[in-house]
């Protein structure tokens, strides 16, 4: 029992130095200009944290995500356009970094099929309606 207390006490000391629970955007990162900050945040919400699983860099606590957030903010301050910033990131990290996949040949089906599903659905409904009209008359 006593031994347990001592170990916990030691851990309590360790904890002070080891906890790195920085959760996403840190106060020091935030830009003075609120409009620029909103732009930077909207961009970082679409950027995937490369070392995490299914998180945007805006939500991520990873150091790499922090670096990218700072990079984006620097570019926003330099008045780079959104497209320029996205292009800069995809040139370096590939399309994987975008949470919203760009429309390309390889993602054509991804973007177009939901629309096709919808059209098929509407067609079925219209057909059904025609059939029932015929039946009723």
């Amino acid at each position, binding site marked *: 029992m006593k031994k347990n207390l001592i170990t916990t006490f030691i851990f309590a000391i360790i904890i002070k130095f080891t*906890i790195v629970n920085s959760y996403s955007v840190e*106060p020091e990162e935030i830009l003075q200009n609120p409009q620029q900050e909103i732009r930077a945040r909207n961009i970082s919400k679409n950027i995937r944290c490369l070392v995490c699983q299914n998180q945007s860099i805006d939500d991520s606590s990873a150091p790499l995500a922090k670096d990218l957030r700072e990079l984006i903010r620097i570019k926003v301050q330099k008045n780079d356009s959104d497209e320029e910033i996205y292009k800069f990131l995809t040139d370096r990290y590939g399309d994987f970094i975008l949470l919203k996949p760009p429309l390309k040949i390889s993602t054509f089906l991804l973007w177009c099929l939901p629309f096709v599903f919808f059209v098929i659905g509407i067609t079925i409904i219209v057909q*059904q309606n025609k059939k029932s009209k015929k039946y009723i008359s």
Partner: protein
Amino acid sequence: MIANLGNFSLWLALFFAALQFGVSYRKNNKSTLYLNKISVYSLLLFTLLSFLSLMYCYIVSDFSVSNVYLNSHTTKPLVYKISAVWGNHEGSMLLWILVLSIFNYFIFKLYNKNNIILITKTLETQAFVTIGFLLFTVLTSNPFEKIIPTPTNGLGFNPVLQDPALAIHPPLLYIGYVGFSAAFSFSISAMSVGNIEKVPWYNYMKPFVLAAWTFLTIGIAFGSIWAYYELGWGGWWFWDPVENASFMPWLLGTALVHSLVTVEKKKVLQKWVLLLAILAFLLSVIGTFLVRSGILTSVHTFALDPTRGIYILIFIAILGGYSLLIFAKNSKKFFDKNYISFMSREGSILVNNILMIVVCASVFLGTIYPLIIEALSNNKISVGEPYYNSTVIPIIIPAILIMGIVPLISWQKTSLITILKKTFPSIMLTFAITVTILWIYRSQSVLGFIGIILSGWIISNIVFTLFEQSKIKYGKNKFIKNSVPKFTKSMILAHIGVALLILGITGSSVWQKEKITRMKINDETIIHNYKVIFKEIKEVVGKNYVAIQGNFWIYNEKNNIITKLKPENRFYPITNNSTSEASIHTNILRDLYIVLGNGNEQDGWIVRVYYNPLVVWIWIGAFVIFLGGIFSINSNLKIVKRLSL
């Protein structure tokens, strides 16, 4: 010792599942019933025994069992020792099998003199599914595997998962997934048996579908609650592939619950329901494949082993191939005798069914597309929240508009003018509600506007439905009685639940406010009329963690203290990781949500404060839907009981 018993029981369970599968080939009804009784009861007994054995190993921390060693630790609180049983891959498969044999038992209980062939065939299919999962567990994921020499203590498990909501999340979800297995078996059975005139297979299928859907709903809600307070950034749904794996069967389940009603009332859409029942279960198994094979890497995934993936894939191929073949061959017998008018309750249900399928197909596409791209081209792409928002929301909106009208319109054909006439008061009320709420929140957000309209629309329609109903109840005009559509209290409840859910989703995603700041002791910060004062920071010691805990006093605009929030940063020395425990103050209008970041006394601590409006209505909504589901299960069981007379 106990572990060996568990292992042995698992093999015995396999034997009885095989017996149950073999039974149905016998011609003699009496011996069929008798043998089925033996196998159903024994299967239940031995899976339960096996499950309890594993639980026992966890409770007494028997580290000679590899599974216990890897996922438990002596310092873990008892509750989490128990929930650790299904907090890992092998144990969760055992839970899956247990739930499967419980449902198996309930199907067996449906036997009466009229339905022997149908139930026997259903039990046969159910046995086949059970064999599949038992073999999977025994061959690729045996939870009773030994480790030599016996370690002195366990490796603990992910402390993020050490949480009450996540402890009951898997069992609830599994009731959902496995419930669809019953729907699947009934569908196969109905198609193989084919004599639809005498045996109302849909009446038997319905309670199981309802149970599956109801528990899936609440299971997903618990996962969401957990994500909300545990992952520490105030979100509650992330379009994570693992979440999608439970959301897709839920969508099909929603479609199935509603189209089953049309089969029951109007004998239309029978083929459709048979197909949907098959797809819902296949998607549940595919979901399991996605999660369990380790093919996705995501926050919730904790299993990595390719052999498992291949096994499940083959199993899916067999199930899918067999069931769809039977569907192609036998579904012709189930043609609809009545046609459906678009302007009727059954018509609206059909439209919404199709919209649900479209949503489900899009989510499915988004979930597997990155895998396909990676397999074909070695390129990696991400499909995240923005994709789902832009494909799902535009289809869900019309579906909800239609959903709102349904209680007011009757079965059979009505006209557009009647519908407009009936919904005119609700349109007015919706308008009034929307204006009021937007005025309170002074919002110009388009999404907020849409969300409030949808929520108000459902509620207004229900208000007027109830109003019309009360008119018949207390009025004497018999003519009105026939013109007012019937509804059930479970439907009203579930629909109100959806309205509340939408309200919560809208409020929390559109009007959230956030404050990220660095605070020293006695610093204060303001978020939406609330003053937050950082009073103190101290160390606390838990059973298997140590933590620093902040103490924040919250004042309202009149400077009255409302609450003291104590977010923690925990450190778990056993697994060497740390978690952050948000501290939340909830009322019906908003959540105040504080997370403590790192820092020290000189520079202060990073503090994140969120003002999350209406969040609690998400969980209340889900719970109300759940209640509606429970009522519906109850009333449908009564119908089933009457069938046996």
